[in-house]
């Protein structure tokens, strides 16, 4: 970027946000969460934190950095939440859910009762759209759910989004991308909200276990994990961290198990434990 555009951008901004601000905050994000933000995440950092600056009545990112350096932890949590919250949607990248139904759940239906165990992990579940989409796919594909042992583990670093995931309350607007059939079957009107809202039905919630988990920390769960949704998660880590994370996921999977990545992610230079079998769909070798 040349200097004329930089100064122009600075002038148009509500808060002063210089390169040293970005570099310092980026280093802080890395220290606290292990997430490595690329140079391209400048706008994301500004956009996510501008809300905090407004809430705190600050005028510049320099002031915000000073506040963080004297902080006893409260604002640091807000800071991490603001940076790591992912925008998400129901059935985002629908081909993954189609694959789950057709190639994982479908074949399982023909197995004897003893083989009806399935463990799915939504790593980076955010506000719950992904694990609930998985749960909807499961219920659509499996007619007699009570005779199965299916669990969906939903984890995220951010405690605020996990609370939303647990409640499963979404505005009608968020549900617009869902078919009327799905909305009828899996959601019920929720009246205790300002905007028209819906809550997921208990049959979906029953399949989920929602837990806070930092992917940099040891995993508490035991495998094997038949399917892992790890979408738009590794993109925030540097290659070494990605390698270590995928190696640990791989140890929780058995040959034939699946790993789904986000649309711009790849295991290239990250892991040789998996074979690409469809768009961002990897099978454990």
């Amino acid at each position, binding site marked *: 970027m040349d200097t004329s555009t930089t100064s122009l951008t600075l002038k148009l901004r509500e808060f002063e946000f210089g390169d040293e601000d970005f570099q310092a905050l980026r280093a802080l994000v890395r220290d606290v969460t292990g997430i490595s933000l690329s140079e391209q995440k400048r706008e994301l950092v500004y956009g996510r934190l501008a809300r905090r600056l407004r809430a705190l009545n600050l005028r510049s990112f320099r002031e915000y950095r000073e506040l963080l350096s004297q902080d006893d932890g409260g604002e640091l949590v807000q800071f991490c939440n603001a940076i790591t919250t992912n925008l998400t949607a129901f059935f985002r990248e629908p081909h993954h859910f189609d694959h789950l139904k057709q190639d994982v759940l479908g074949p399982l239906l023909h197995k004897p009762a003893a083989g009806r165990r399935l463990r799915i992990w939504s790593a980076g579940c955010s506000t719950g759209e992904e694990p609930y989409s998985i749960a909807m796919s499961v219920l659509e594909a499996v007619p007699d759910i009570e005779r199965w042992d299916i669990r969906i583990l939903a984890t995220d670093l951010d405690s605020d989004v996990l609370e939303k995931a647990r409640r499963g309350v979404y505005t009608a607007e968020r549900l617009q991308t869902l078919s009327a059939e799905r909305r009828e079957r899996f959601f019920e009107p929720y009246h205790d909200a300002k905007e028209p809202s819906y809550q997921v039905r208990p049959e979906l919630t029953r399949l989920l276990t929602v837990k806070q988990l930092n992917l940099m920390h040891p995993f508490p769960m035991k495998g094997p994990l038949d399917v892992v949704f790890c979408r738009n998660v590794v993109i925030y880590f540097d290659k070494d961290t990605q390698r270590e994370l995928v190696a640990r996921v791989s140890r929780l999977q058995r040959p034939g198990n699946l790993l789904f990545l986000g649309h*711009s992610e*790849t295991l*290239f230079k990250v892991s040789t434990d998996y074979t*690409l*079998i469809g*768009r961002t769909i990897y099978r454990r070798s």
Partner: protein
Amino acid sequence: MARILTVDDSAAMRQMVEVTLTSAGYDVAQACDGREALGIAETNTFDLVITDVNMPEMDGLTLVRELRGLASYRHTPLLVLTTEATAERKLEGREAGATGWIVKPFNPDKLLATVAKVLK
């Protein structure tokens, strides 16, 4: 060593290209269609992209056009590897911004020679 992205909706073809290229010491990444390839290319750097033409979601020539629109791929060699061999399609490929055109089934030695040439 050079990093190469190979794009094909056939797993067997991706595997053959990867084996050929890794045997010569290249680092090879795979993508199943143009859309996946574009996503990966935007967040990773490659010295060369080799793409099939007929693929679901996003075909190879659209991928070439999209890549040429990205600053980081304006000068990157982009090879097309396809069963199509008509002069019109080749011209279309050239206009889209492809560096070269290889017809399937490919001869491994010839593929390696072309790769070495465009990477120079």
